[in-house]
């Protein structure tokens, strides 16, 4: 499961939903991996305004990953003037002529799309329930006494 997904996940219990502490979930005993994925700065530009930035920042801190800034970057921070380097020629999606992706764009791609949680737990800070992540798939089915 890519880290981007975690920005859109909360505790599945109805009692927790209204409580602000049910989002985001907190990783525990996490095994992370990197999966090479096609680089799409256009996708990042699209998704950036929809991210909950404090949740992403908190996640990086908890996982001990190189931090992101306090403020969400604007979409313009993903591109700069210049020729597209050879290493970026196979990017997915359209990019304006005369522009190339910035280092920040590459860093965010690596963080949000290529860094995946393979194993571990996602913990709700409100009720303490732990959701298992196995083989990269998070399971939110609740035991019957919690439904």
């Amino acid at each position, binding site marked *: 499961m890519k880290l981007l997904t975690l920005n859109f996940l909360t505790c599945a219990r109805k009692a927790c939903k209204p409580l602000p502490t049910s989002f985001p979930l907190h990783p525990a005993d996490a095994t992370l991996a990197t999966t090479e994925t096609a680089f799409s700065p256009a996708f990042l530009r699209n998704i950036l305004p929809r991210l909950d930035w404090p949740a992403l920042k908190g996640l990086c801190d908890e996982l001990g990953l190189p931090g992101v800034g306090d403020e969400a970057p604007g979409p313009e921070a993903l591109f700069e003037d210049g020729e597209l380097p050879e290493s970026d020629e196979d990017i*997915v999606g359209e990019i304006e002529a005369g522009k190339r992706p910035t280092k920040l764009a590459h860093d965010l791609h690596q963080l949000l799309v290529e860094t995946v949680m393979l194993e571990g737990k996602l913990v709700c800070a409100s009720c303490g329930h732990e959701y298992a992540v196995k083989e990269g*798939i998070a399971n939110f089915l609740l035991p019957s006494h919690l439904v």
Partner: protein
Amino acid sequence: MATPIERGSQYEEQHVHAVYEEIASHFSSTRYKPWPLVESFLTSLPAGAVGLDLGCGNGKYLTVNRDVFIVGSDRSPNLVRFAVRHEPHAAVVADVLDLPHPRRRFDFAISVAVVHHLSTPERRIEAIRAILDVLTLASGGAEGGRALIYVWALEQKGSRRGWDEGHEQDIMVPWITKGPKSSGQEEKTYQRYYHLYRKGELEEDVVKAGGKVLSSGYERDNWWAIATPEGLETVI
């Protein structure tokens, strides 16, 4: 005298969830062609829209639009194993009645062939309410999020099943698996529970769930509705 059937979550566990988990591989191999209306709903979304595919199965709708971000979910772990393969999207194992998503965060949702597997009227309405709950509310000039919901129709006398108006709506539908002829595998039949929707019933359920029907219709033996939550974002 026959014991009355007690429908609810345990009934669905036995007659829906367990069956999909068993037939996942065969089911997935037969599900690759997106239905035209779902496809056009997904391709009409603006780039950067964020949404959910609730009951995503093998993720066949996660291949339609790469300019949006979709988190799919399904009750069957075996089907989710197929669904997670479709970049740039995601998929998790979850129940539509206990969704692991923040409320009022998403621009769109699709739920294709899911609500009809819930076995009581209350649970079907609760599922639609859960779908509407994750969508953004209308705010200022901006419209609220939209959900496309698809359910199997009772009125399908042209289909090989031949059901029509006046028939029983709560039924068991067989799924037959068989391996390749050379494998010598025997045929096996599984029974899945369905509630067949009659004309107008889906729209009624959307309203009971606190939603507004924006458009609705009939396509290929199914009723569909595009719905949005009633209400406005309160700006404090």
